[in-house]
């Protein structure tokens, strides 16, 4: 059984309270179609569990397979440095079919940030260490593809449709 080796903390991109009843951590890649499919499912889970669920997203770009995954992850972190991580995260998944340099700049503009600043950050690899740290932590936790979910710190092996995840989250709470 693989366990989350890096505990959820203040450094994480979070939606919900740190003391929520359940914690769902996703290791994801913005170019991965399966993550794209999981995106609306996570939204539904958040609606379903409300304040009882804390959701955390960590970067796991499979750069060898997905040429835009790394720059997309760094773009989301760039937005995060301006407190707009989730806006960018959502826009990236909602426009996944158009992912590319132009889209990254377009979305940056859309959330009222400066595309020139983004270009500069990407060129300098300003957010690369953060993305690499997420990736390395994921590897140590047994992330085995994208998306990989951890429910209350335990890797979820199996399908990630809405019903399965609801059951898995509820079961995690009863086993504690």
């Amino acid at each position, binding site marked *: 059984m*693989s366990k989350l*080796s890096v505990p959820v903390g203040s450094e994480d991109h979070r939606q919900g309270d740190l003391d929520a009843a359940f914690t769902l951590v996703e290791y994801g890649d913005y170019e991965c179609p399966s*993550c794209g499919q999981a995106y609306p499912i996570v939204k539904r889970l958040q609606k379903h569990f409300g304040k009882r669920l804390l959701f955390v997203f960590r970067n796991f770009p*499979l750069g*060898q397979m997905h040429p835009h995954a790394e720059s997309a992850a760094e773009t989301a972190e760039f937005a995060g440095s301006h407190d707009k991580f989730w806006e960018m995260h959502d826009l990236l998944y909602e426009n996944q079919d158009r992912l590319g340099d132009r889209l990254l700049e377009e979305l940056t503009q859309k959330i009222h940030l400066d595309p020139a600043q983004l270009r500069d950050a990407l060129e300098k690899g300003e957010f690369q260490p953060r993305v690499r740290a997420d990736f390395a932590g994921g*590897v140590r936790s047994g992330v*085995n*593809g994208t998306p990989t979910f951890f429910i209350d710190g335990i890797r979820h092996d199996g399908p990630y449709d809405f019903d399965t995840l609801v059951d898995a989250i509820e079961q995690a709470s009863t086993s504690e």
Partner: protein
Amino acid sequence: MAQILTAGTPAPEFSLNVTPDQKLSLSEMRGRPVILAFYPADWSPVCGDQMALYNEILPEFQKHGAELLGISVDGVWCHGAFAKDRHLHFPLMADFEPKGAVARAYAAYREEEGTSERALFVIDKNGVIVWSYCSPVAVNPGADGILRALEELAK
């Protein structure tokens, strides 16, 4: 699941084709750790694919000076096309003729399916298995166990 070879066992020697005209032997790797990753078949679904994941993690393995070898019963041409499609930067060995002989030597062959298990071995610089793990075929084992074993070796 098979009871695969365990830690402390000398790793059975093998010599397999990695390309149509090139063979690779385990003994050539002496002096550095080897990660031997048996997997059932090329061309499993993309995002959850174990070999594609290891390809991404390769730099972490290389930090430990370790050599990664993928191995399945697929033939060299199949491996070649697969490696090219997935941009793999490590060798895939063809356990093809006699089919599955190396998997059998590591007790990681599935008779019924005619493929190997999803089994991982970390072999030390002297050719001794120091860690092994057999995953359910449908579950990609990830790399946390491999990295922990490599870290132990470095101690």
